[in-house]
């Protein structure tokens, strides 16, 4: 099984490389330069600027220099935030985004799996219908509507939680953003678990487990849970992708100093290096997630381990 994992790892590196290369050339191929938005500059100053940023070099040289810098973890300077390098911005923002994103995915799993399981066990009951309706709501209503609504309710009317802002280590500031982020994947996970659990409950090996006189919680947790979670494992990478997308909105609304906010600003300001750096970070995250999910599959279903 180790060999299987290493093969996948080896396949991931070229993918990342391709992403970096394509991104780099696409951005450079764009019409206009990074300084177009400033007021028209006199040509000498423009030339100096381009020289300083290395933009007057042939494109392959630029590419080579970028890769070399990247290997040292240097993403280059930000074109907009002139005092900071992209690496510094990432260093500041990534921990925040990572913290919020991780809590969100954990919330989605820790709530979604039990809810789906209970809905399956109480199939066709009121609890089942209610939870599944809430799941539809969770998926249909966009995060950028949910978060302000939550802020309105809990922040402005009830005064329980702060609407926006960030203090390191403060749970109160975390609560609404992570809940809003977790809601869509939570809903999908609940529905997936309910569907697969329902199917499993009538399968032969679960019948055997009941026939052995095992209590319900043992049958569910030891015998049914792992196969039931297979669709959830498949969903994990799209779930993380959706949380990444959601974080752009959540950070903007709640004023959280994470990289999502930089991503949006970078787009609005046409800050090339910043956006390039962000894309690389996000892609790496997704690829790593993909590898972890592969490992997860092997644990959930032993038959997978023998297929390679």
């Amino acid at each position: 099984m180790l060999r299987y994992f290493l093969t996948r790892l080896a396949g991931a590196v070229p993918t990342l490389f391709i992403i970096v290369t394509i991104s780099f050339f696409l951005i450079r191929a764009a019409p206009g330069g990074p300084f177009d938005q400033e007021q028209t500059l006199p040509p000498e100053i423009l030339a100096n600027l381009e020289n300083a940023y290395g933009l007057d070099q042939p494109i392959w040289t630029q590419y080579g220099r970028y890769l070399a810098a990247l290997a040292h973890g240097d993403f280059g300077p930000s074109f907009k935030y002139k005092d900071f390098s992209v690496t510094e911005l990432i260093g500041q923002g990534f921990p925040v985004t990572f913290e919020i994103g991780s809590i969100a995915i954990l919330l989605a799993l820790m709530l979604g799996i039990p809810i789906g399981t209970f809905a399956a066990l109480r199939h066709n009951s009121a609890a089942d219908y209610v939870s599944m309706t809430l799941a539809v709501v969770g998926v249909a209503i966009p995060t950028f509507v949910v978060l302000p609504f939550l802020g309105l309710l809990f922040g402005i009317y009830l005064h329980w939680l702060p609407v926006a802002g960030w203090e390191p280590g403060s749970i109160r500031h975390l609560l609404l953003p992570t809940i809003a982020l977790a809601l869509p994947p939570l809903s999908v996970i609940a529905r997936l678990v309910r569907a697969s659990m329902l199917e499993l409950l009538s399968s032969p090996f679960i019948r055997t487990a009941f026939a052995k006189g095992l209590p319900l919680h043992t049958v569910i947790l030891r015998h049914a849970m792992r196969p039931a979670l297979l669709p959830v494992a498949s969903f994990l990478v799209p779930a993380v992708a959706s949380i990444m997308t959601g974080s752009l909105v959540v950070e903007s609304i709640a004023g959280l100093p994470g990289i999502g906010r930089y991503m949006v600003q970078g787009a609005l300001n046409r800050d090339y290096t910043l956006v390039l750096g962000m894309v690389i970070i996000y892609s790496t995250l997704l690829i790593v997630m993909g590898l972890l999910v592969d490992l997860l599959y092997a644990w959930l279903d032993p038959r997978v381990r023998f297929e390679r």
Partner: protein
Amino acid sequence: MATPTLNVEDLSVDFTHRGTRISAVRQVSLQVAPGECVAIVGESGSGKTQVFMAAMGLLAGNASVDGRVCFEGADLLGTEPAQLNRVRGSKLTMIFQDPMTSLTPHLKIGQQLAEVLVCHRQATWGEAMSAARRMLERVRVPEAARRLNQYPHELSGGLRQRAMIGMSLMCDPALVIADEPTTALDVTVQAQIIDLLRAMRAELSMALVLISHDLGVVAGLADRILVMYAGRIVENAGAAQLLRQPRHPYTAELLKCIPSVTGPRWERLPNLPGQPPQAGDSPAGCAFAPRCPRAADRCRSERPLLQASADTDGPARGVACHFPVLT
């Protein structure tokens, strides 16, 4: 008779599907004495499996049950789930038809055997795994210690079924219900499993219910044979008697269908024409009448009840037929 290990009284099982009510089991009564091996034979749809699903509390959600089932004197149908769980898996166990789908794919064989002891006897996992290994050896699984740590898909069909049997014997049960234990296996392996069951009975003297559609399979093992058709018991006799002198026309036809190595060579294999009644139908009269070579008008209008059939030698027998075969 001493308290029968299993006493089924007037059991009826109905399923409700999309508004229609389907009768799977109609007023079945039977008893299994301690240590006895009783075979239940019938076509698919005859209700033979559902009787014991009801006893084990494994019926589907849309089922409704009527009647009584007592195990070692205690009512099974009305008990609380906790009480039922104490009995099933330990004193009253079941072996299922297809060991590939009936064993949990992601748990090791040893775990699946051991958990029975951990759950019912409060053993530690260490003790239980040792006991599991011993059980695997007992059911003639070679390299038992290695097999303990393997997953079901790594074992052959025969070995899986042996493991299932071992799993059912962990707590020294009073009654083991075997639902078509050989149907999913190769013919060569079938005989081995029957031998194993016979050996286990000899060692542990538990009662055994053998459910099958194949009279040939049960012939070597059963003390008594019950024949079911369309949800009812149509004949009940000692195994030797039934095989020598079937009284019910259906049983007689079934016997004719068993291919024999030593018997005459047929031009065409004998078979029973027609189909058993659809699960939802409730025909007036005898359910077998449309296919019975001996059917008369009385058969079509009046349903025959199971009646003791006078017999000079051997245990009591019953038959539900207006015109039983008497030779």
